[in-house]
């Protein structure tokens, strides 16, 4: 309060002189500060989008430089009628459908439960978050060893419960199971930390009040915690959705998209057509279709989120 009272008259008296001098001085400074980033941004974010757009209209070959011949939209019609492309789109979608619910809800449950434990919170955060800093290649090596048929730890664990382990790395359903389990273990911590941070913002008094009103712990979680976490849940959901749709590392490393391309995600399809078959123009068209899909999902979420929150918060 005191600062504004002091600052306003000072600002007002200086206003006429500053209005004239400031803009040109700030204009120059502003652009000087922004230029390095803008240069990199335009060159390496906008650049690839435009290059992809142009390439998709030519029959570019990835091996040699130069665009090749103009083919108009025929790459797009090829992509959109290709069953392999749609299969890979479906695989990325399937992976998203399998992982998103688990990775949105399980970290929420774990974060809420650990927040009720007074001691050892650091231990939980360490245990759950540590996998997130492990490179995907190391994760894949470790899990490949645990999934090894007959001799792997997880194959044995199935045996302890009297079950036959699926063929983790050699069958489609076993492969999906293997990749989903790996992903849950690996990326769980990121969402867990987002929830934990949001939980710390909820004041202790609310719980005390709820407890005095006779709310059981489960009621407190359902009626107090989860509603207050609404915005965070929505954020984790969209971040997870986009991350899952962009899956590549795990599937490529563990299954190579196999067996027989039945788990190949879109990014690997683009990789295969662009870098193995060298069909640059075609792969660029696939890139643009995939790219636009992802952008549309982000925009849709943003629009959907803006409306109710604008109404609530004024």
């Amino acid at each position: 309060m005191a600062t504004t009272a002091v600052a306003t008259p000072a600002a007002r008296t200086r206003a006429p002189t500053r209005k004239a001098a400031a803009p040109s001085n700030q204009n120059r400074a502003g652009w000087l500060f922004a230029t390095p980033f803008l240069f990199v941004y335009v060159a390496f974010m906008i650049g690839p989008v435009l290059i992809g757009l142009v390439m998709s209209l030519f029959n570019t070959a990835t091996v040699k430089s130069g665009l090749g011949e103009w083919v108009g939209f025929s790459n797009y019609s090829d992509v959109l009628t290709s069953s392999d492309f749609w299969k890979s789109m479906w695989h990325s979608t399937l992976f998203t459908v399998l992982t998103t619910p688990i990775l949105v809800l399980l970290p929420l449950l774990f974060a809420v439960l650990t927040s009720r434990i007074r001691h050892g919170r650091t231990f939980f955060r360490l245990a759950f978050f540590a996998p997130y800093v492990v490179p995907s290649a190391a994760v894949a090596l470790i899990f490949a060893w645990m999934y090894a048929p007959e001799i792997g730890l997880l194959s044995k664990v199935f045996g302890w419960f009297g079950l036959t382990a699926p063929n983790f790395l050699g069958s489609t359903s076993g492969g999906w199971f293997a990749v989903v389990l790996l992903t849950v273990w690996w990326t769980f911590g990121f969402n867990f930390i987002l929830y934990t941070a949001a939980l710390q913002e909820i004041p202790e008094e609310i719980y005390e009040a709820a407890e005095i009103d006779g709310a059981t712990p489960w009621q407190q979680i359902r009626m107090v915690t989860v509603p207050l976490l609404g915005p965070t849940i929505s954020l984790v959901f969209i971040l997870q959705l986009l991350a899952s749709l962009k899956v590549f590392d795990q599937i490529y490393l563990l299954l190579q998209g196999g067996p027989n391309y039945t788990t190949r995600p879109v990014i690997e399809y683009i990789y295969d057509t662009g870098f193995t078959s060298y069909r640059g123009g075609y792969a660029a068209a696939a890139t643009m279709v995939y790219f636009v899909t992802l952008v549309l999902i982000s925009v849709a979420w943003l629009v959907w989120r803006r409306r109710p929150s604008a109404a609530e918060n004024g």
Partner: protein
Amino acid sequence: MTTTLVDDRVATKVPTQRPPRTETTSGAKIFNRLAATCMILFALIWLVPFAWALITSFRPDNEITANPTKPWSNHWTFHAYTSVWNAIPIRWWYLNSLIISTLSVIFTVFFCSMVGFALAHLRFRGKGPIMALVIAGLMLPMEALILPQFTEFRELHLLGTYWALVLPNIAAPLAVFVFASFFRGVPVALIEAARLDGASWWRIYSRICMPLCRPAISAVAILTFVTSWNAFLWPLLVLSQTKTQTIPVGLSSLQGGSAIQFAEVMAASVLGIIPLLAVFLIFQRQIQQGVANTGIK
């Protein structure tokens, strides 16, 4: 406001509701015990892959073949580590990863904080469009654009260089966002005062705003380091020679190798995990705050 309201409630309700309250707390106690037990169990399960890799890496090969899932060894050995260290150029991978991640951090912090400062405290023509570009950038899935990106870097003759890996990392709209929101927290009065004392904008940025926003710097620095260290697909495409590879790309070449020497493969994985895990254990508070800061904004 809410706190005082709640406090009133506490004051009025505590005397009348004593007996049921103790009852709920005992119920709550059981619930919390149960939650604690479950969570400890799951946390231990989460540590199993680490433990498993570590145990396997210290067991001799013949023992693993004879009894693959035994969690104990009668002859603990470092053999797998020495043979991996000599067989694969992991020293080079460490060095490459370190150089690439460090350069990415320096440039990202520098470039993104500068534009963040301009967006937070300077009034200049074109600020609106720049802000819009940054927000739009948050929604661009760059992982999808590897093919045109590859074409661009080939035309620039940057393939196989460190720059091919560093430059795309620097264009980080999220980092700009984090810096801008932290800089907005710096009181305008402080900046006005510095201006009156004749400080240049550069001086205000480097001597006032940056020192005040250390949490933002560490958040962006650590997250950039982790993501560039762990990047896989782009380095896989760009770096073709064994000695120029990074840790993740190098490790991936061991996947599905013909020789099934589990101890060696696990030793290599452990070596690949150690540097970042050490960084994580030292900076775990900052890393977690960093994730929280960047995620929630």
